[in-house]
């Protein structure tokens, strides 16, 4: 049974209220940090923990905090990125919906470390019902003296507000999030300057994912070294995995970094195997933006060792044979799933979500969607497959923000590992209109 640092008390009565949260050891890290530690000591613990950004990029959180310009004379801001919109990802939702005080506690300690007087939680507009929950919890925190002036007599004051988005995946990108908080269209900014130097209203700003900030609580409670004892290599601590697709037990699971992918898929403790006794065909392990992997590359690395649920192991082999942990949006495909249809579906998503600033992304995502639609609906040509490869190659690396790359990678991976499915669609356009879109036996993946 893996340790649970975030979800340990998930099913306790009233854990979503101040009373229930306090009964289960809540707000201890605020007492400890504000009364017994300096802001720099808090940052030091986060550095020692090895915590990496849990939104998807996996950048060392302690290092990001150290970039914050503390000498500008301008106010500093901590923004919690609760814009969770990466397809396949729903872990931040669970945290905020069920244990709102965990995020608030983490925000207080983190804001203290960064020297912020006002911090914001930017939450996607579709989670409006969770905004209500957070605001209620924040009011409880103010009433208890954990927010506001002179918290617990420490001399540190903090105001915390929740700010809704209104439907834009791109606002999960930190500079687009800042633009949106300023009341504008979510167009990402060129970096540098980085938000740590010039962010919200030109002030030094740190943007962190919900789960990253929640993780600060156990890190301060138990110490960074203790957190780093869990996991392997540069993948320390626990990670929330959002499991969905053709599995028996979809849901959010907190895992210790380092369990095997095979265990995660098949164990009753986690996904419980593939539904309806079908075979595993493929998996997108970290949200729609990361490469899809066929079963034989998913479960084992190139050295034959089992692939593990860590940043390093899932990336082993680069994009040739590997993928990424990303957001931990773990989407599982059974043998009847159509990879072409899924690729078209994701292409449609990225085209819809492109902010439109960069020509390669704005035009390229639309072009890929149209070509994939043609192939999926029986109007494809063999040249379309190489055309798709060419388009994605010309988007990658040529955009202001990573959405372009995120749109390119799924197309590249699908063609790299499942070209035969695309060719099948082109060769047999009539068969793609089967009601269940089930492949003929000759198209099934070779079993390893």
């Amino acid at each position, binding site marked *: 049974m893996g340790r649970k640092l975030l979800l340990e008390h998930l099913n306790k009565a009233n854990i979503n209220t101040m009373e229930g949260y306090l009964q289960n050891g809540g707000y201890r890290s605020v007492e400890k940090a504000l009364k017994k530690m300096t802001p720099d000591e808090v940052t030091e613990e986060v550095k020692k923990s090895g915590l990496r950004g849990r939104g998807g990029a996996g950048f060392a959180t302690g290092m990001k905090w150290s970039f914050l310009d503390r000498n500008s004379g301008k106010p500093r801001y901590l923004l919690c990125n609760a814009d969770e919109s990466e397809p396949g990802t729903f872990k931040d939702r669970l945290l905020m919906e069920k244990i709102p005080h965990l995020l608030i506690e983490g925000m207080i300690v983190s804001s203290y470390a960064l020297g912020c007087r006002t911090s914001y939680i930017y939450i996607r*507009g579709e989670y409006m019902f969770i905004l209500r929950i957070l605001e209620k919890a924040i009011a409880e925190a103010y009433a208890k003296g954990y927010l506001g002036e002179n918290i617990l007599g420490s001399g540190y004051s903090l105001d915390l*507000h929740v700010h809704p988005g209104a*439907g834009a995946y791109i606002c999960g990108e930190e500079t687009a999030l800042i633009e949106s908080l300023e009341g504008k269209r979510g167009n990402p900014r060129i970096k540098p300057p980085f938000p740590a130097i010039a962010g919200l209203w030109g002030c030094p700003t740190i943007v962190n994912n919900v789960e990253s900030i929640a993780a600060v609580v156990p890190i301060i409670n138990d110490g960074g070294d203790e957190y780093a004892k869990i996991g392997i290599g540069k993948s320390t601590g626990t990670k929330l995995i959002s499991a969905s697709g053709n599995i028996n037990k979809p849901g959010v699971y907190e895992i210790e970094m380092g369990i095997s992918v095979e265990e995660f898929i098949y164990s009753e403790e986690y996904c419980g195997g593939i539904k309806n006794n079908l075979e595993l065909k493929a998996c997108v392990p970290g949200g729609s933006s990361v490469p899809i992997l066929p079963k034989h590359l998913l479960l084992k690395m190139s050295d034959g060792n089992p692939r593990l649920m860590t940043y390093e192991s899932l990336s082993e082999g680069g994009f040739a044979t590997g993928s990424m942990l990303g957001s931990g949006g773990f989407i599982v495909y059974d043998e009847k799933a159509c990879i072409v249809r899924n690729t078209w579906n*994701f292409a449609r998503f990225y085209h819809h979500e492109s902010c439109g600033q960069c020509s390669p992304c704005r035009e390229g995502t639309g072009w890929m969607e149209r070509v994939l639609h043609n192939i999926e609906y029986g109007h494809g040509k063999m040249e379309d497959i190489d055309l798709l490869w060419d388009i994605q190659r010309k988007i990658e690396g040529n955009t202001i923000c990573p959405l372009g790359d995120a749109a390119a990678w799924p197309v590249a991976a699908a063609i790299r590992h499942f070209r035969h499915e695309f060719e099948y669609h082109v060769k047999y356009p009539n068969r793609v209109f089967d009601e269940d879109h089930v492949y003929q036996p000759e198209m099934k993946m070779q079993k390893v």
Partner: protein
Amino acid sequence: MTEVQKIEFSPEAMLEVSRIVSHYPQDKMKSALLPVLHIAQNEFGGWLSAETMDYVARLLHIHPIEVYEVATFYSMYNTKPVGKILIEVCQTGPCCLNGAEKIVSYIEKKLNIKVGETTKDNMFTLKTVECLGACGYAPMFQIGETFYEHLTEEKVDMILENLKQEKLKAINN
């Protein structure tokens, strides 16, 4: 017959607007735009007309174009009228692996409209939207602030009938 509705927030809405504006520095009122547009959309029929957007601009001391460009960027703002009940079905990959497309077809057949359209009695509008963060509970749709998950055709029937009855009661009162 056209209804001319004076665009002005109710006292309750105005209080909420003041509360929101107080979250930001005094010279950064524009930051309140996204939350205030949500309030405006809820107050004035579920969509944002040009008049509504001009009103919000005046309230926040910004130019109308600054409101138009935001309202047209974010997918939750409706710049055209919608029915009393807006059904937003998630259509992204993981939901499709669990029957989302079948649910969309079912609703289209049941209400006799296509995605993007509104029923003749102006009761229901059907839209498809991108990943709502409910992939483990698919298929699902959002109506107002509520997520309806683990949908089946029977559940869809029940949910839509209940919501329709609620709306009719509210209209008749």
